[in-house]
């Protein structure tokens, strides 16, 4: 039984819970809104209701499944029979035989009261607020809130904290804050950086960075903006870019490190606007790091090369690559491949398992060719070099599929092989290291996701003869093996921009034609 802090769910014990022996004790049961629900010992009423997914959602502000329980917002109160007062469902442990009402008039009245208090000082700036549309305060107010306000006094305004940059990633608007303190608990208990704090008390209670000079310094600041129930904390990368109701949401996997966090790609008209973590108990819990959160910029980079490039015949080593058609590229490269005796395929460890396998199969049919993999980011060469960067999610290996490529029996690169080969083909999905450490006079073919600057820096060292644009993780189907050997499969979330082709299409074009 592990004892380390579980970053997935604060309350629930870590993955290997000893299986409950049915004969030892009968499963306890609780009745919520007339439905009898079995629950695990130690569950609160809210958790029991959540797990069974039986009752209507109990509204909450301070409760978050990944955070310690506070019980401060009083929004989640429910009526429990034989208890004189309303109980906060987030902090009341469920007991066998308990009868709970989550929608009784008394409960609703209480929630309306809470909402009225919260809205007393909450500005009516939903049009401006980025949270509008996915705001819990909005949703609950629509459901429970009073339709009018009796508050006639002037609202509380934080002159200096209306738009305050807590860091270069997060902006705070204190007017909107409902003091649920999820963010503070997150920095205390999850990231353990303690870089957010509530200062002053009561009416003047204000969220502030612990060290205002330094601001926030944890690597999971995006999560603060995810679970903030109002628009008090907003993520600068997404701030004011798009209203959330325009977004298409599709599940995918973050390809920024060997962790393979589960994410949701939010896009509008094939333009990715942001990435958000999706709960997966065995991978990332509720969280995701900021580096992964802004990684969609690789795919959306305006400098990304999305049409095939080819160096014209007889051009010098430094000559620029010229945009061409797929037909012409296939025709030209076909000749090059046929005339090459020793082709070296380098697979970047950010390629998916399927892509690596397809290249490997192709290579096995080309006499004299060999396949190796290459990682090189952060000095990581094989999966043995991998390790955690902190106690949460961030990994040293910044590519997503090192273990998947290794599982295919592909060997890590050996610099001698590079100088040996008379044609090097390097497939990479935007993360694996640029091959600038190698010295080779052989022609190089770059394949996959590259941007203009990367290609230019490669060209300074190597003789690049062509570039075959490929797809990002979010643009293709594939599977990736993460650091705990878990194989995860993704499907296409956005359509590729430009003329990028899948690996099998390229192989088909290069080989058969």
């Amino acid at each position, binding site marked *: 039984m592990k004892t380390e802090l579980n970053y997935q769910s604060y309350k629930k014990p870590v993955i290997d819970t000893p299986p409950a022996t049915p004969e030892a004790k009968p499963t306890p049961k609780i009745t919520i809104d007339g439905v009898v629900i079995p629950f695990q010992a130690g569950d609160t009423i809210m958790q029991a209701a959540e797990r069974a997914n039986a009752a209507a959602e109990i509204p909450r502000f301070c409760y978050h499944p990944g955070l310690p329980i506070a019980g401060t917002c009083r929004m989640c109160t429910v009526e429990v029979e034989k208890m004189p007062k309303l109980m906060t469902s987030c902090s009341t442990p469920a007991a066998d035989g308990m009868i709970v009402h989550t929608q009784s008039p008394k409960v609703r009245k209480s929630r309306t009261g809470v909402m009225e208090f919260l809205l007393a000082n909450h500005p009516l700036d*939903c049009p401006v607020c980025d949270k509008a549309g996915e705001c819990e305060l909005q949703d609950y107010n629509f459901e429970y809130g009073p339709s009018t306000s009796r508050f006639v006094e002037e609202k509380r305004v934080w002159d200096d904290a209306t738009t305050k940059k807590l860091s270069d990633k997060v902006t705070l608007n204190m007017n909107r804050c409902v003091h649920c303190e999820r963010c503070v608990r997150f920095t205390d208990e999850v990231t353990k950086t303690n870089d957010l704090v509530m200062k002053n008390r009561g009416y003047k209670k204000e969220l502030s960075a612990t060290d205002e000079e330094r601001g926030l310094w944890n690597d999971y600041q995006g999560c603060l903006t995810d679970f903030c129930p109002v628009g008090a904390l907003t993520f600068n990368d997404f701030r004011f870019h798009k209203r959330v109701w325009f977004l298409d949401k599709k599940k995918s996997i973050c390809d920024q490190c060997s962790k393979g966090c589960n994410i949701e790609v939010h896009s509008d008209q094939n333009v990715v606007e942001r990435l958000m973590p999706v709960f997966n108990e065995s991978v990332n819990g509720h969280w995701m790091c900021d580096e992964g959160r802004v990684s969609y910029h690789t795919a959306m980079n305006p400098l990304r090369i999305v049409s095939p490039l080819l160096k014209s015949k007889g051009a010098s080593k430094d000559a620029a690559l010229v945009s061409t058609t797929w037909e012409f590229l296939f025709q030209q490269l076909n000749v090059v491949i046929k005339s090459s005796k020793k082709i070296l395929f380098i697979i970047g460890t950010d390629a998916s398992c399927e892509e690596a396998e397809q290249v490997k199969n192709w290579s096995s049919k080309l006499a004299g060719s060999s396949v190796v993999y290459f990682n090189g980011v952060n000095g990581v060469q094989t999966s043995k070099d991998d390790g955690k960067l902190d106690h949460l999610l961030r990994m040293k290996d910044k590519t997503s599929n090192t273990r998947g490529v290794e599982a295919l029996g592909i060997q890590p690169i050996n610099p001698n092989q590079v100088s040996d080969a008379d044609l090097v083909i390097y497939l990479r999905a935007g993360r694996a290291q640029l091959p600038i450490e190698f010295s080779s006079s052989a022609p190089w073919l770059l394949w996959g996701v590259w941007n203009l600057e990367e290609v230019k820096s490669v060209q300074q060292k190597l003789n690049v003869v062509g570039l075959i644009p490929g797809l990002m993780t979010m643009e293709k189907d594939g599977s990736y093996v993460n650091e705990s050997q878990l194989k995860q499969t993704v499907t296409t979330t956005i359509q590729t921009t430009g003329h990028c082709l899948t690996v099998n299409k390229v192989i088909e074009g290069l080989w058969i034609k």
Partner: protein
Amino acid sequence: MGKINTVNVSKKYTFKESLYLVAIIQGMMITLKRFFEGFVLHKKFTIMYPEERRDYSQRFRGEHFISIDNNKTENCTACFLCETVCPAECIHIVADEREDDQNLYGVKKEKKPLSFDIDALRCCFCGMCEEACPKDAIKLSRNYEMSVLKRDDAIYDLDHLKREVKGLKGRG
């Protein structure tokens, strides 16, 4: 194939009707009457447009504008509600952080439209943007003379929309 029952609803013409000439002459008498009404009495329904103008309703929905405050700053906060509600999808907003302006209460208006384009050629003048606007920023004026010489001119940008509009009784 099932049998389809059809009913012939055409009626048989009487002899007089089948001659047509009577009906033709009747019709021609009507037009003759109208001819003399127009020729002699100058009876007409035409409004002589540039000189004479029709009085439109106070609620007529014409060319768009964005209301401005005392500082000549647009009231729009780029909330995208008009873009969302627009059935013709003719509004295109790019939002940005507003750095400079203070409103009456000293609270920063956080957000501003960096660009606000209305494609008047796509617009169907339904007025839904006006309904949706929480800031009473976008409005439809009563101006219906919106002809332009270039298509580009029909795409109203923020500068055009922020012009001052007068004579909007009963609106806004």
